[in-house]
C-alpha cells in the first residue's frame, strides 16, 4: 500500500499543486579538515519525527514538548542510525549525537563523525520518514573539499553517492 502511495505521489508531484506541503527534511553534511570530522545537521519537522517513532517502534514520544524524556531522544537517535547511514570513502561510519534544539517546529539535531581527515566519497542511504510519508523528500546538502553538492532522496530513490 505504501509503495502504491509512493506512485501516486510521483504523479501528484508531477501534476503540481497550488500549495506545496512541506514534507522536506534537510541533512547538512559539512567536513571540517581542521577538526578532521564530518559535522551533520539534521532538520526534521518534530511532529513528523514523533509520528515516525510511533509507526516504527509503537512508542509514544514527546520530542519538542515539555514532557520530552531522555528515552525519547535515545529513540530518535536509534531511528536515525537505522534510517540514515553514511559511508565515508567506502566505509560505513556511525555518527555520535552532540545536541539538539527546536527551531519553530523543526527539530535541529547535531551529530558528528570524528577522525575523518579527508573525504573522497560519501555514500548516503536515507529512509528517514519515507515510510511514514510516502511523499517525504530528504534533501542532502554536502560541503566538502570546498565544493557544495546536493542530493534529493525520496521513497523511490533512497541512496546516492557524492564525490
Amino acid at each position, binding site marked *: 500500500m505504501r509503495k*502504491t502511495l509512493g506512485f501516486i505521489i510521483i504523479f501528484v508531484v*508531477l*501534476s503540481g499543486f497550488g*500549495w506545496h506541503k*512541506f514534507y522536506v527534511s534537510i541533512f547538512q553534511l559539512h567536513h571540517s579538515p581542521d577538526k578532521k570530522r564530518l*559535522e551533520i545537521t539534521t532538520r526534521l519537522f*518534530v511532529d513528523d519525527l514523533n509520528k515516525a517513532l510511533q509507526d516504527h517502534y509503537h512508542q509514544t514520544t514527546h520530542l519538542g514538548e515539555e514532557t520530552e524524556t531522555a528515552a525519547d531522544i535515545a529513540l530518535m537517535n536509534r531511528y536515525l542510525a537505522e534510517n540514515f547511514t553514511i559511508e565515508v570513502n567506502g566505509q560505513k561510519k556511525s555518527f555520535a549525537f552532540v545536541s539538539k534544539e527546536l527551531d519553530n517546529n523543526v527539530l535541529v539535531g547535531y551529530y558528528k563523525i570524528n577522525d575523518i581527515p579527508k573525504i573522497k566519497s560519501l555514500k548516503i542511504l536515507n529512509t528517514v520518514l519515507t515510510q511514514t510519508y510516502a511523499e517525504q523528500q530528504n534533501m542532502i546538502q554536502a560541503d566538502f573539499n570546498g565544493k557544495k553538492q546536493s542530493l534529493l532522496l525520496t521513497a523511490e530513490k533512497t541512496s546516492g553517492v557524492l564525490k
Partner: protein
Amino acid sequence: MKKHILFIWLFIAITPSIIAQETSKAKEKGHTDQNKFRQMYDLLATPNSYRTASGAPGPDYYQQQADYKIDIELDDKNTKLYGTETITYTNNAKESLDYLWLQLDQNIAARTSKTPLVDNSKIDPSISAAGFSRKYLEAKFDGGFKLDYVKDAKGNPMSYTVNETMMRINLDKPLQHGEKIVLNIKWNYNINNYMIDGGRSGYEHFKDGNNLYILAQFYPRMAVYNDVEGWQNMQFWGAGEFALTFGNYEVNITVPADHIMEATGVLQNRSEVFTPEQLKRYNQAENSFDKPVIIVTQAEAMAAEKGFSAKKKTWRYKAENVRDFAISTSRKFIMDAMAVQFETKKAMAISLYPKEGNPLWETYSTRAVAHTLKSYSSHTFEYPYPKAVSVNAQDQGMEYPMICWNFGRPQEDGTYTDRVKYGMLGVIIHEVGHNYFPMIVNSDERQWTWMDEGLNTFLQSLAQATFDPKFPIDRGPAKNIVPYMSGDQSKLEPIMTNSESISQFGNNAYGKPATALNILRETIMGHDLFDYAFKTYANRWKFKHPTPEDFFRTMEDASAVDLDWFFRGWFYTTDYTDIGIKEVKQFFVSNDPPKDFKAPEVTRRNRLKASGPLVYMIANDSPDFKPEMNKPLDIKSVTALDEFIQTKFTAEEKAKLDSPKYFYQVTFNKPGGLVMPIIVELSFEDGTSETQTFPAQIWRFNDAEVSRMFATKKPIAKITVDPKLETADIDTTNNVWPKAEVKSKFD
C-alpha cells in the same frame, strides 16, 4: 556641505583607478556597464501605451471578455461529467483575430497526453506488487475531454483543431475589434480519482461508497489573448497553472438530490435545494459576524451519506467578473458559514467538509476564511466577491474564484497534532488568499508562478502572524530561505524562470519571492512606503492582467525607492547575500605626526581638510602607535585641536559640540553576489548598543569591499552585521568582530 562630500567622493572614486592604470602592464579589455545599480533597461520590456513606464495600465490597455452559460450533469455512479456550454467571446483588441484558442485542460489526463513522456524514468530496484501492476500491467486512466460538437450561434458545426491541451477554432472570417462570437460546445469526460491519478480536481472515494467531488477545469475555457503574449497557448504540462479571461457565468449543475454543493458565484435557487430548516440557519449565518453557524449538520450529513438517492436536483449559480468556475459536491458535506463585514459591504465565509474533517474543521475553517479576507483586504482592496468557500479535500491545496480545496484531517479518533492543525490553517489562509492573487489581480500563472504564489505566500505570512502569534511561519522570514539560497547552484534558478522549468517549486516560486517582499517591507522600504506601493499595484491591476514589469515598476514608481538593484539581484539571478566584517582598526588622535609624514600639498580641493595646524590619526596597528595612546580622546591633550576650538567657538557653541572619544574604521567585505544594506550593531563595553544602517547603495563604487568610520563616546566591545538576521545572509560566521570563537555546535 554637500559639495564637500561630493569632492571627497570623487577623490576616492578616481584615485584607485588612476593607480591601477599606472601599475598594470597587460592590456585589459573594456566592458559594458556591470554596475549592480544600473537600471533595468536590459531586462524589462519597453513601456508602451498598453502598459506604462509607471507600472499602470496605459491608455490603450484592453482585455478580452468571455461569458459562459454552462449546463452540466454529474453521473455519480460512473464518475462521469456531461456538459454543454455557450461561450460569448468579445474581441476588445484593436486588431482582428483569425482564430480563437480554447484550453482543454482535462487532456493532460488523456491516454495520449505527452505530460508523462517528458519525465525521466528509471527502473525501480524494488517495487510493490501493486505498484508493478499499476505501472506495467493495468490500463491507464481514460481521461480527457470527449468533444461531441463545436457549433456556431446558428447551430452550424465549426471547424476546429485539437493540439493536446489546446483547441483552435478556425474562423471563416476574422473576428473584428468590438465584435462578439458565440460558440456552442458539448462534451463529457471521465472524472479522475485524484488520490490515484493525481490532478487539481477530481474526486476522493470513501470506504462508505461516497465520492467527494472537487470539479475544476471541467469545461473548455477561453485562452487569454493580450498585448504581451498574443494567445497564451503554451500547453498545460502540469506545473504552470492557468491564464484565464474574465467574464460572467451562469452555471446549472445537476447532481444527485441528496448532495450538498458549493460553487463559484451566487446560488440562485437556495430554497429549492435546502430544507426549510437549513434555509433558516443560512439566514442566521448571514447575520452572524462573530462565529460560524452550522447550516448542514453532521447528523444530516451522516444520514445523507447512506442514501444514494436516484433523484436529481439542479443548483443554479451566477457569477460576475470571475476568471474561472469551480464546484464541490457530495452527500457527505457538513456546511457552516458566517458573515464578514468590510467597510462598505459584507461577504460570507463558508466551509464544506465531511465528518472525517471534524472536530478540526468546524472549529477552525470558517474562522480562518473570515480572518484571511480581513487581513488580505487591509493590504490590497476590499474583497469584491460575495463569498469565499473552503472545502476539505484530502491532499489538495488548490484555488478557484470564491472557492478552494484544502487538505488537513484529524486521526480517526479525532485527535490531531499541531502540525496537522497549522498545516490545515496554513493551506486555508493560502488558498483563500489566492482570491486576491491571481483570481482578481489576474497574472499569467502559465508563465510566472511567482507572481501569484510569491505575492500570496507573502500576504499569507502576514495573515498567519495575526491569526495566531504562535503560528509557525515557514516562508517569509529571511533566515528561513538561507538553506535554499545557499544550496548547490546547479539546482537553483532565478525567480524569473518559466513555471515549467523550476526544480524546487516551493522554494523558488513561493518561498524566495515571499522572502524578498518581506525584506522589502521590513528592511529596505519600511511599512509605509511598501504598503502604499503594494496597495497601488493591487488596485491598479485588480480585474486586469499584470506582468512582472508592471509589479516592479509600480513598487518603485509609487515609493521613490530605487529598486532596480533589488529586483535584478533577487528576481533575475541566483545570487545570495553574504556580507562580513573584514577588518576593524581603532585610531587615536595625536599631536605628533607619524614618522616620514609629509604634509599634503594644499590645493583648492583639499584646503579645508589639509591646511592649517594638523592633528594625526594613528592606527592601533601602525609603528607609530604607542601603548600610552590607548585612551579615550581628551581634546585638552591635543594642542592643535584644543587651540582651534578655544579660538573658534564661544562658550555657548562649545557646549553644543559633539564629544566622540573612540575612533574605529571598519572594512566590510561581500563574498555574496547580492547587494544589500549593511546593518551594523555596535555593542559597547557598558552593555548598551546601537544599530546603524547603510543603504545598499554603499556598494555602488566597489562591489567587493567598503569601509566606514565610527566615532563613538563609548568603547566598542563587539560589532555585528545583520544582528536580527533580516537579510538572508547565508554565512553569519564572518558577521562578528572580534571574530567570535565560533562556538561550534559540534564540540
